[in-house]
């Protein structure tokens, strides 16, 4: 085992031997190393956010015909540091009558909910935090922690607008968790395992080719889970003051900000792991660091795509947001799981990857056409009253204001 094959274990064993030579008991040294590894991973994740902020501001700036940050450092690369120092020096304000423990715990939980996911992501064939057998469930559980942070923030602030914002956020997050979990069943079904490492290893064909429609649903739900445009109505900067984080200032507010950016990147990372083959690529097995590079390239492609969506698609209203989830994504995800399971079970005995690829692609295409037809019909039914309001049944009748009887 050399450094290039297995860098994490190589450094780990070296540190272990150093610690043991200092007279530390081996199992205590193991615990120290685990805590150290978790700390390093968390710090790297948080530092990575600094770069993400710059990257995203640059792309959004270009899309809006601006230059983006360009004053501090080369290409404005040090702008996030300047912002960071500004936010460090701001005053902490704890609102009157705040529930202190939930109020202060909320930013921590918000970041932890995202950072927990990094612990189970396989960055390369030998670089990963922990390969637990219930990795997919763990990711869903981490999402629950993030929701808890938002509820704590809303409750602890002692502010009715914060509370309303928290309710709206959590309603959105819980709703979009349902199609997300359902679509996650498909990679689990293909690979026969809940462990992320096994899911990556079994993707000799990327699952986005075998299940394009579920992949699209997963991407949409991930954007909604992050709460970015077009699903950013929970803290729409141009419409309302802020959402659940209205009472936060200084670094505590910064933590929510960091959590959002990190979550956006983690969403792209998860998409790459579940549907784009993770670290797989040519020679990735022999040179794990190459796998890491592949994963990062794939993740950045997905991340760039989500930033493009953020820059182009207009914001949904709250009823549209709920309609999209409950009337389209959830039923479609359920049907897709059924269709994929049946087709997969039918073509698997043939044993040819080409046949299963073609069969699954055709099934997905058929489902996509049917869905589009449904959307078209419902949109047409909704449009028609504009032309002839009196004759046609309205798809969704507005409640008529009760008029006092003229007689």
């Amino acid at each position, binding site marked *: 085992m050399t450094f290039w094959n297995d860098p994490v274990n190589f450094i780990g064993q070296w540190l272990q031997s150093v610690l043991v030579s200092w007279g530390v008991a081996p199992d205590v040294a193991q615990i120290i190393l685990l805590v150290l590894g978790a700390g390093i991973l968390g710090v790297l994740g948080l530092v990575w956010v600094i770069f993400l902020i710059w990257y995203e501001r640059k792309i959004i700036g270009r899309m809006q015909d601006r230059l983006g940050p360009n004053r501090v450092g080369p290409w404005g690369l040090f702008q996030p540091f300047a912002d960071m120092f500004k936010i460090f020096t701001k005053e902490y304000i704890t609102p009157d009558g705040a529930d202190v423990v939930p109020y202060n715990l909320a930013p921590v939980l918000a970041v932890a909910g995202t950072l927990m996911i990094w612990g189970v992501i396989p960055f390369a064939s030998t670089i990963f935090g922990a390969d637990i*057998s*219930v990795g997919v469930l763990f990711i869903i*559980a981490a999402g*629950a922690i993030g929701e*808890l942070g938002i*509820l704590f923030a809303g409750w602890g602030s002692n502010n009715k607008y914060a509370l309303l914002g928290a309710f709206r956020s959590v309603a959105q997050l819980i709703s979009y968790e349902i199609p997300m979990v359902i679509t996650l069943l498909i990679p689990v079904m293909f690979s026969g395992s809940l462990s992320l490492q096994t899911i990556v290893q079994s993707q000799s064909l990327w699952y986005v080719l075998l299940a394009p429609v579920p992949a699209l649903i997963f991407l949409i739900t991930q954007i909604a889970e992050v709460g970015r445009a077009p699903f950013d109505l929970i803290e729409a900067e141009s419409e309302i003051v802020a959402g659940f984080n209205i009472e936060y200032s200084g670094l505590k507010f910064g933590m929510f900000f960091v959590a959002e950016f990190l979550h956006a990147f983690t969403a792209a990372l998860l998409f790459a792991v579940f549907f784009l083959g993770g670290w797989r690529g040519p020679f990735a097995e022999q040179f794990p660091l190459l796998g890491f590079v592949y994963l990062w390239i794939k993740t950045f492609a997905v991340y760039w795509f989500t930033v493009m969506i953020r820059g182009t698609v207009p914001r949904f209203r709250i009823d549209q947001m709920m309609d999209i989830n409950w009337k389209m994504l959830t039923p479609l995800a359920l049907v897709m799981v059924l269709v994929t399971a049946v087709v997969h079970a039918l073509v698997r005995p043939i044993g040819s990857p080409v046949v299963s690829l073609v069969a699954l692609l055709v099934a997905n295409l058929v489902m996509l056409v049917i869905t589009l037809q449904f959307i078209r019909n419902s949109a047409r039914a909704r449009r028609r009253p504009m032309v002839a309001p009196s004759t046609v049944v309205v798809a969704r009748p507005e409640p008529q204001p009760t008029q006092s009887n003229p007689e």
Partner: protein
Amino acid sequence: MTIQQVFFLAVAAITLFAAVMVVSTRRIMHAALWLILALFGVAVSFALLETGFFAVVQVVVYIGAIAILIIFAVMLTRQVFLDVGPQLNRGWWIPAVLVAGLYAALVGVLSTWSGFQTQAAALPEAASDLSQFGLALVDVNAYAVPFEVASVLLLGALVGAIFVASDRKGVER
């Protein structure tokens, strides 16, 4: 005492303290927050029993769904966010005595049982294989019937909850 034992005792103490706070704190919202801590403690004790699957499921189901639902219910069922007056019944000491007696009786009965001090054997490899559990759940000779009953129960609860909580027009006002 091994590290594991100390860890278990700490987790149990935190969980029980949180549970006591759940049933005794005056502000109902704080009770909900303590409940979350208690549920976390139970999840950790599941992990100590080497059932990582149920530890994670506990977090997903209880903290991700049930606790958040309870917080929603707490907030939806009040006009002012103040809990005035006592939150316990007048004769709260009667259940306290009853429960203490029940606890003493339970521990007393259990301590006479021969298997009380059983030590755990090493967990066989097959016991942590989730796919085996999944197969057992859909196997007609194993647990397919309870599994189906559970899904029917969930469906019934889903429909029932929507029906009961829906704001039907004409019922009120």
